């Protein structure tokens, strides 16, 4: 695959369509030579980013779409997931506290950002006006054997 390849997908703001982005990201990562393990990590991270965009960014509004932009360099695959919300201000996600969740002291949900951050090499959340808020995910080929 050529350096600088670029793919864009637009998803309806409906849960389930995150799987389209997952498949696209997995196909690009496979073309670049990523291992199955890294591709599985990327698929989960991309799915969670899209779910957040559909549910929280676009509030399940069927008139809005989620943009997924995948671009490559020699050694990395970058995925941007763009929505019409105001974005997430956090620079990092808190680790879930399973004990508090089991005790009912913390919502069982709220795992998405943690999983994203844990499964890719870079994860950044950017706030912006409608259509400009995004999360940027990167996986790098040089991390393959680490």
């Amino acid at each position, binding site marked *: 695959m050529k350096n600088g390849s670029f793919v864009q997908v637009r998803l309806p703001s409906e849960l389930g369509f995150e799987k389209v982005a997952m498949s696209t990201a997995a196909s690009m990562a496979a073309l670049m030579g990523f291992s199955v393990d890294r591709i599985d990590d990327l698929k989960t991270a991309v799915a969670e980013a899209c*779910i957040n965009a559909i549910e929280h960014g676009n509030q399940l509004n069927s008139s809005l779409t989620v943009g997924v932009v995948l671009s490559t360099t020699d050694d990395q695959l970058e995925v941007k997931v763009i929505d019409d919300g105001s974005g997430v201000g956090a620079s990092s996600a808190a680790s879930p506290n399973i004990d508090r*969740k089991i005790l*009912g002291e913390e919502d069982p*949900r709220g795992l998405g950002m943690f*999983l994203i951050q844990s499964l890719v090499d870079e994860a950044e959340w950017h706030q912006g006006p409608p259509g400009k808020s995004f999360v940027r995910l990167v996986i790098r080929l040089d991390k393959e054997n680490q």
Partner: protein
Amino acid sequence: MQATTKVTQRAATADSGSAVTILSFSGDISSASKETILAAYHGLDGSVSKVLLDFTGVEYINSSGIAIFIQVLLESSKSGSRTIAIFGLSPHFQKVFTMVGINKYAALYSDESAAKSGL
């Protein structure tokens, strides 16, 4: 657009000789699965003390799906008399469940044979 989850229930026996109920899931597990999964769990007889959750047939699970199983473990923990274990997860989702900490409350086994041996 979310795919459906199917749940089947069967009885089995652990290597220790104790009775086990296996709940097998197939399809996708997402927020849309909550009613189906909790209904299956709530439908278990109160005398069931060992439950195996079988993910062998699961094709996709996301964080909302994982949260449903945290809810199941929360209920099991409250009852205080039921052991839950998990088998059939892919290596990737064994890693994810461990990252979240679920293995602290439900042992993760690679397959049914290992789970029956471990219970």
